[in-house]
């Protein structure tokens, strides 16, 4: 059996050393080693986007990323969004104000996708918001509130 590989990377602006088995998923390493349980496992097949994190500014489904792939990369998870650890990100605040979160399983992925969208397109129209969040599924079907939340975040 192959041994664990040592992986050096930056997670939420902090240097981190991870140990991963062959084909171990980034999602599992983040949740079980670093205890960053904000990223959720939904489908485990890259369909729902609940496990979305950013790797070097690109949004990815962490359930479909081998942990060894993040060697030397910078990873941002939902835990790293709040400024100074206590002031919520504008998107997080907007989700609270607009009721964008229902059961909460999809919320971390939705927020990461929204933040990624706003980094690329600071003032998106409704169509761009829908496109930006197309990779994230909400089983509560509360999409309208989520779109409103992203639009509210743009105004902040």
């Amino acid at each position: 059996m192959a041994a664990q590989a040592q992986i050096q990377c930056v997670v939420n602006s902090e240097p981190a050393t991870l140990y991963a088995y062959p084909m171990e998923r980034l999602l599992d390493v983040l949740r079980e080693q670093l205890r960053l349980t904000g990223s959720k496992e939904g489908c485990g097949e890259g369909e729902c986007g609940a496990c979305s994190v950013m790797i070097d500014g690109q949004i990815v489904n962490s359930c479909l990323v081998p942990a060894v792939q993040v060697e030397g990369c910078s990873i941002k998870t939902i835990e790293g969004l709040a400024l100074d650890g206590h002031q919520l990100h504008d998107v997080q605040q907007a989700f609270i104000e607009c009721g964008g979160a229902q059961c909460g399983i999809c919320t971390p992925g939705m927020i990461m996708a929204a933040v990624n969208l706003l980094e690329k397109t600071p003032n998106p129209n409704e169509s761009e918001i829908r496109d930006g969040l197309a990779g994230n599924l909400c089983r509560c079907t509360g999409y309208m509130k989520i779109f409103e939340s992203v639009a509210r975040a743009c105004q902040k």
Partner: protein
Amino acid sequence: MPLHRLHEDFRIGGARVSEIAGLSYVGPLRMSQIDMSAAAITARLKLVSQLRRLCLSLGTAKVDPRPLETNENVKNKGQQKLKKESK
């Protein structure tokens, strides 16, 4: 690290990627013969997800206490039935 860099000579933490990727079991096969495309790795990770889910469900599954019907049991029962009939 882009997936196309996952080739034989690339090392992470002193270990060859071929070892990290769990490919040591392929023996004489060369890395070039293994499909390391993004699609292949995605397919493998989907299997990892399914296997993990299966293991978790087995871990919490309730086991039926009744003994399983093995081939040996079935055979013995058949022989007993034949003996009764012959008597």
